[in-house]
């Protein structure tokens, strides 16, 4: 038995049948993490002790004939943006270094109840802001397919740990492509569900109206399995949808006969890497061979996706991140030299080294020290765009364009069932390649932000490799709540191809 190479579906079955114990299974993956993480940096925290205790408890219950959850013994990695009561939750930020939330995120609680075994918390771009995982305060993640390259982001640690067999499943979050893009660049499968399908409670907010949690795994079938546990209404999240959760695993094994897939011609315009274009076209061919039909569709406002996204997301972020002020939790700057706090935190401007009060000094210095440059950039962008005199020109206009973008999708879904295309314009890029050019970095989200702005679902899965051996991702987008169809199409594709079974060789031997 080779647990590292097994799908989550098979692992759960093997655990259920007693072919492997939860402790054995957890040990294999924890050992793999220990051997590999040094070169990948996918994990910010590994909970060996907790995972083994949990696994032992599951084994004991199973042995005693007591009930166990549907994922009993399955190792799962959690993006460090999800609150966990028993592990630190940092958002890969110095601001929250060592922070322990007093509660579990809703998805974490659901996975716990399903008896999943959490192996650790995965690296990410700080506060999920970034597309390369280079914005982590705790060092970048390396792409298992080429350690000199970025894994994508912001869920880069989650993508890389699955690609490198450190966990069969990881949970990510996707605000503008943060599940799909790293999944594409790391050769795994990632699902960004419809907004509201998975509760955001306990997901540390980046942009509340865009954030959505989803599974990252080796196959669509594995994603379907995880969705059955994490999806569902949560009365604690006002934006979560009160809609029943289908049995995704039962729904996916169906032929694609008659499924209409849209193809957006603009996706193939200049800027798309030729090897990626070729892989994507071949993917369309596979889907057609499976019975789907392909039709050109228009998303006329898609070209405004990036500017719209980079207004709405930073605006919400500037407010969401205001709470990290050093007053109640998280990083607080040490009082400066000659600092003397005065009653009420007030004193006249000109004192305290140019700060208007010791309180303001504490705020400014705590935030200056705690946040990284990209987070600061987005806070400033959002603060500016929401300011009096700019609100109408930026935020209000972005909201109007967002509605047009959503309408584009709904219109397109009148004539097609899915929209296919590339996830990213290029395969994994070199670490450092775009770090000096924020605008180029923002463009890595070109094909993915529309899904979030429209609030619909999308899936990314491997559809080939470049000559140099880097994965190429394919994306499908679907109408609201059409996750079963997304998973069905991706699963059908994966029954006809083996791209998703390929394994990186780069870090074999454990060292880069």
């Amino acid at each position, binding site marked *: 038995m080779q647990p590292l190479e097994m799908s989550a579906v098979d692992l759960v079955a093997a655990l259920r049948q007693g072919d492997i114990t939860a402790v054995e299974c957890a040990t294999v993956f924890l050992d793999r993490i220990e051997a590999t993480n040094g070169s990948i940096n996918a994990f910010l925290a590994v909970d060996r002790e907790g995972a083994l205790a949990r696994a032992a408890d599951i084994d004991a219950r199973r042995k005693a004939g007591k009930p166990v959850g549907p994922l009993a013994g399955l190792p799962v990695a959690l993006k460090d943006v*999800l*609150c966990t009561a028993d592990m630190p*939750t940092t*958002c890969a930020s110095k601001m*929250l270094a060592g*922070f322990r*939330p*007093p*509660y579990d*995120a809703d998805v974490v609680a659901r996975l716990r109840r399903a008896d999943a075994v959490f192996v650790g918390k995965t690296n990410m771009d700080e506060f999920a802001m970034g597309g390369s995982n280079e914005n982590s305060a705790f060092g970048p993640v390396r792409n298992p397919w080429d350690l000199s390259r970025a894994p994508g982001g912001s869920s880069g640690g989650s993508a890389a740990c699955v690609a490198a067999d450190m966990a069969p499943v990881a949970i990510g979050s996707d605000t503008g492509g943060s599940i799909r893009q790293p999944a594409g660049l790391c050769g795994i499968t990632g699902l960004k569900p419809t907004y509201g399908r998975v509760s*955001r*409670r*306990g*997901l*540390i*907010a980046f*942009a*509340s*109206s865009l954030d959505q949690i989803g599974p990252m795994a080796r196959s669509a079938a594995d994603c379907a399995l995880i969705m059955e546990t994490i999806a569902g209404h949560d*009365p*604690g*999240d*006002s*934006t979560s949808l009160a809609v029943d959760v289908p049995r995704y695993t039962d729904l996916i094994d169906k032929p694609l006969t008659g499924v209409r897939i849209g193809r957006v011609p603009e996706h193939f315009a200049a800027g798309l890497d030729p090897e990626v274009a070729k892989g994507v076209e071949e993917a369309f061919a596979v889907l057609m061979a499976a019975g789907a039909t392909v039709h050109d569709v228009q998303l006329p406002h898609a070209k405004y996706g990036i500017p719209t996204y980079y207004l709405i997301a930073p*605006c*919400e972020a*500037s*407010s969401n*991140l*205001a*709470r990290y*002020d050093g*007053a*109640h*939790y998280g990083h607080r700057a040490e009082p400066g030299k000659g600092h*003397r*706090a*005065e*009653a*009420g*935190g*007030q004193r006249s401007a000109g004192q305290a080294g140019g700060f208007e009060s*010791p*309180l303001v000094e504490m*705020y400014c210095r705590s935030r200056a020290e705690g946040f990284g440059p990209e987070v600061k950039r987005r806070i400033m962008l959002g*603060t500016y765009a*929401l*300011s*009096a005199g700019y*609100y109408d020109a930026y*935020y209000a206009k972005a909201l109007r364009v967002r509605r047009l973008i959503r309408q584009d999708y709904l219109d397109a879904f009148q004539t097609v069932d899915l929209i296919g295309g590339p996830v990213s314009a290029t395969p994994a890029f070199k670490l450092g390649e775009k770090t000096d050019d924020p605008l180029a970095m923002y463009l890595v989200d070109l094909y993915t932000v529309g899904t979030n702005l429209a609030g619909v679902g999308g899936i990314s899965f491997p559809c080939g490799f470049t000559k140099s051996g880097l994965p190429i991702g394919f994306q499908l987008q679907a109408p609201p709540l059409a996750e079963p169809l997304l998973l069905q199409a991706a699963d059908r594709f994966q029954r006809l191809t083996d791209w998703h079974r390929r394994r990186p060789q780069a870090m074999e031997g454990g060292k880069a």
Partner: protein
Amino acid sequence: MSTNTPYTTIIGLEVHVQLMTRTKLFCGCSTKFGGAPNTQVCPTCLGLPGSLPVMNRQAFDLALRAALALECTIAPFTKWDRKNYFYPDLPKGYQISQFDLPFSSDGFLEVVDPKGAFEPRRVGIVRVHLEEDAGKSMHDDAAGTGDTRIDLNRAGTPLCEIVTQPDLRSPQEARAWLNELKLLLVYLGVSDCNMQEGSLRVDANVNLHIPVPATAGAEARIAKTPIVEIKNMNSFRSVERALTYEAARQWEEWQATKAEMGKTPKQTRGWDDPAGITRAQRHKEESSDYRYFPEPDLVPVTVTAERIQSIRGGMGEPPVSLRKTLASQWQISAYDADVLVNQGRELVDYFEDLATRVGEGKVASNWMQQDVLRILNETNGTVSAFPVRPAGLADLIGRVKKGDFDTSRAREIFAEMVTSGRPVDDVVAGMGISAVSDDDVIALCRELLAANPKIVADVKSGKEQAAAGLIGQAKKKNANVNPGKVRAICLDLIREMG
């Protein structure tokens, strides 16, 4: 008052009232006052990472009730907004409030002074909206270390913000209007309006309109002084005092500087109650930009006509119409109805029960005003805890009407009923009071007339009031006699004597 001054005082109020919900606006924490600091908190009201708000429907219903009673238009669609600013008692760095689409707007509340101290005033309500409260900062000045302590028990408590038009014209009116607003909100069960516990807070905007006579080259006009917002007033009395002070201050300033509105930014001044003055404040919100935007963690609220109907149905009668109802139904004066209604719903219930039993509003009202209220005031008591219930008092009043004893004797009995909590008969027996038969009264009167020829002569000569001297003597001989009866019988007997 404006009539006595060379200017008109223009006042608008901004009132925050805490809604009487059991739990906070966006989480399940208790809103109870007085808990140990930071014991009524959870991830949501602490603003911990990942926490989300969920609207308290009861709070929204209470706010709807207030807005409907203030004759506001209810928006069929309303949303939440974030008001962004940094302060240590605001753990999220923003307050969830309502900005451009408040749930209600454009209402009014009228205030009438029953003694006519000012003209009835209908005060327009610009808007009523719902928002969450911040926590409390306690600046530890005494310690000298400059520590500021934060208590977040109050953070997230539901507040209704009520903003009036600048329709009030004197500090007295402002105070009377606030009393009327408080009465209304307490009647509705929307808020307890307890200022000491912070469940009602008032800020006032005030300036002066000063007529400037025509001069050569300039027509007559009204000069307006810069608007000042007054904060830190912790009672309605302080509101009146602060406004009175501020109007006088602005008048002096006008005479000295002739400064008019619009040339300087709105000033905020704090009321210093012990000193009795307002002081300019360096304010945290000074020239701030709150960067309002729609709260993405909450969904918009739609309010259906059915919901409005159901809220209206459960509202009860507001004071303004209750005064009229009482006056017409029980034939009591507007002034008396006002006094009763202003004491609160429980006292009105007591009165209506009493009046029904007595079968006459006027008598019941007199007993309420002269006796029940007096004792409640003297003892600082509440109607609900008042030992004599309407049935007992009605019993006593019935005995007076029957002539068993006079009103002053009944008062003594009533006082004893209040102290002992015992019914009329017990008290009467205990005090050795018994009804005197008519024969006994006549016999007593004959005895008195015989003993007082001077009084008899005076009465005969037309000075009927001289008979009063007989009553005092009758009471001395038998404390239980009814003075009215003694007087009537004595006069009859004198007339019979020819």
